């Protein structure tokens, strides 16, 4: 399939279709509205269904129903809209249903701004809903990666029985890059024998959310955490960029990692032995990347479009908060390459 130049928002819509998703429930919000717009015309062409829900709350609960009915299902939104979906995301997580949720983040908090941001890390990675749970969180840094991750998200969701959140931002949603769509499922997926399909001549199926007896509820929780342990063991993903000889490492994901990448080329030119660990999964956080490198690295330079929401995860991974320096822009500001270069020099000093 030849590459096409596509807007991130449309590309993720197409990626969903290529991955076999036929159901989308969502509500408009800048900077992701092209996702529902695109799918409103493209899904019907492949026999799929697009429903513009009355709200994000309704949308996520439609997703809950469609996921329970056994379908591959997508919703997307941007920061405040995702905040509204938290209760519903908790329900889907609790029920152990597969669903894919795209968040094209914008600056916050509250209504904030419509410019790109990365300040929904906590809400997404730590969990913005009640109770003990995790969702898999994928963080693409390009339109192609967004496409690939959306496709993978459906497989991970089905494989593990859990929501998968693709955490991108307005920039990735709005920019165009060449993309190609090569969906290959790498997981062996079991048939969804648990789904709501009408019992026919078989056993009836139930999807529960209230587990009123604490012992049962705890057992239910524990079973989730057994699943999470497997995910933590198997699904950590990250990119190491120029890390072979690096003495300093940037840590950055998504859009900000691209600025860092540019900055690194300037810094390398200036003789700094610096690379980057770019988490591609935010949950599970790629702790393995840090375990491997731990001793070698003098400082981790965390760069985010937030006030430092990932810092604790980096600190936990490298087990030394004093090794971390942070540079962040917030409220929709995308840092410029120069700033990062300067930040790097400040941290690394004459230490080349």
């Amino acid at each position, binding site marked *: 399939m030849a590459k096409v130049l596509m807007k991130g928002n449309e590309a993720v819509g197409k990626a969903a279709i290529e991955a076999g998703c036929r159901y989308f429930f969502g509500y408009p919000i800048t900077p992701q509205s092209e996702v529902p717009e695109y799918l409103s015309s493209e899904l019907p062409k492949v026999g799929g269904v697009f429903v513009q829900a009355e709200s994000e709350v309704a949308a996520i609960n439609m997703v809950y129903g469609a996921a329970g009915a056994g379908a591959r299902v997508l919703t997307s939104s941007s920061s405040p809209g995702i905040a509204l979906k938290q209760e519903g995301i908790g329900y889907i997580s609790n029920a152990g249903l597969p669903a894919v949720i795209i968040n094209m983040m914008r600056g916050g908090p509250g209504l904030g701004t419509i410019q790109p941001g990365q300040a929904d890390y906590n809400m997404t990675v730590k969990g913005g809903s009640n109770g003990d749970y995790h969702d898999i969180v994928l963080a693409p840094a390009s339109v192609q990666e967004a496409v690939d991750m959306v496709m993978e998200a459906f497989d991970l969701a089905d494989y593990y029985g859990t929501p998968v959140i693709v955490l991108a931002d307005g920039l990735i949603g709005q920019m165009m890059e060449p993309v190609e769509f090569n969906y290959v499922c790498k997981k062996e997926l079991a048939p969804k024998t648990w789904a709501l399909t009408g019992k026919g001549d078989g056993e009836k199926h139930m999807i529960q959310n209230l587990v009123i007896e604490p012992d049962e509820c705890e057992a239910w929780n524990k079973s989730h955490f057994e699943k999470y342990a497997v995910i933590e063991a198997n699904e950590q993903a990250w990119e190491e960029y120029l890390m072979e000889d690096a003495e300093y490492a940037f840590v950055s994901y998504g859009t900000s990692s*691209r600025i860092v990448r540019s900055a690194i080329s300037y810094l390398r030119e200036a003789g700094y032995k610096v690379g980057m660990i770019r988490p591609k999964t935010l949950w599970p956080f790629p702790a393995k990347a840090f375990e491997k490198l731990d001793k070698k690295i003098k400082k981790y330079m965390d760069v985010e479009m937030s006030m430092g929401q990932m810092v604790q995860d980096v600190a936990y991974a490298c087990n030394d908060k004093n090794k971390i320096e942070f540079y962040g822009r917030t409220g929709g500001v995308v840092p410029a390459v120069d700033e990062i270069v300067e930040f790097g020099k400040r941290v690394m000093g004459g230490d080349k």
Partner: protein
Amino acid sequence: MNTQRICCAGFGGQGTLSMGKILAYAGMLEGHEVSWCPSYGPEMRGGTANCHVIVSDEPIGSPVVTSDANCVIAMNQPSLDKFVDILGKGGVLIVNSDLAALKEDKADIRVLNVPANTMSTQEFGGAKLANIILLGAVIQSINTVKVESIDDAFTHVFEGSKAKFIPDNKKAFIMGYEFAQNYK
């Protein structure tokens, strides 16, 4: 090819975004890495609209051009004022001289004043193709993509019922290209 960082800016409706898109498309067709990154937001409605295009042979880092730009295309005065400073050494400023002018001389850059609105109006009866005229000037002035690739890009961007726009676009492109060739 060195990494080319281009910024197209103007009023909403002047076609800055599609100018950038054609350029990016051409880059892609030549097999380069490309990115096209728009500004978006409420200011787009009646306000300014700009996009950043990067064409490179390496994976593209920041898709936003905040410095070291090779080329800035300013279709109106506010855009010129806002973006002229991101040009790097030896960068080219392409000005829609019907609506904007560089007020203070700037060292280390080359300036091309193109009366694109006038040219477009004279040839096509409206300012609609000023953007493509400027694109012609861009391609002539910096080392990005080949003219043929732009032609190719036209056929991809203007598909189906839009194919009828191709001849005029090609013509406008050549006008700009030649204008730049003969500049000064």
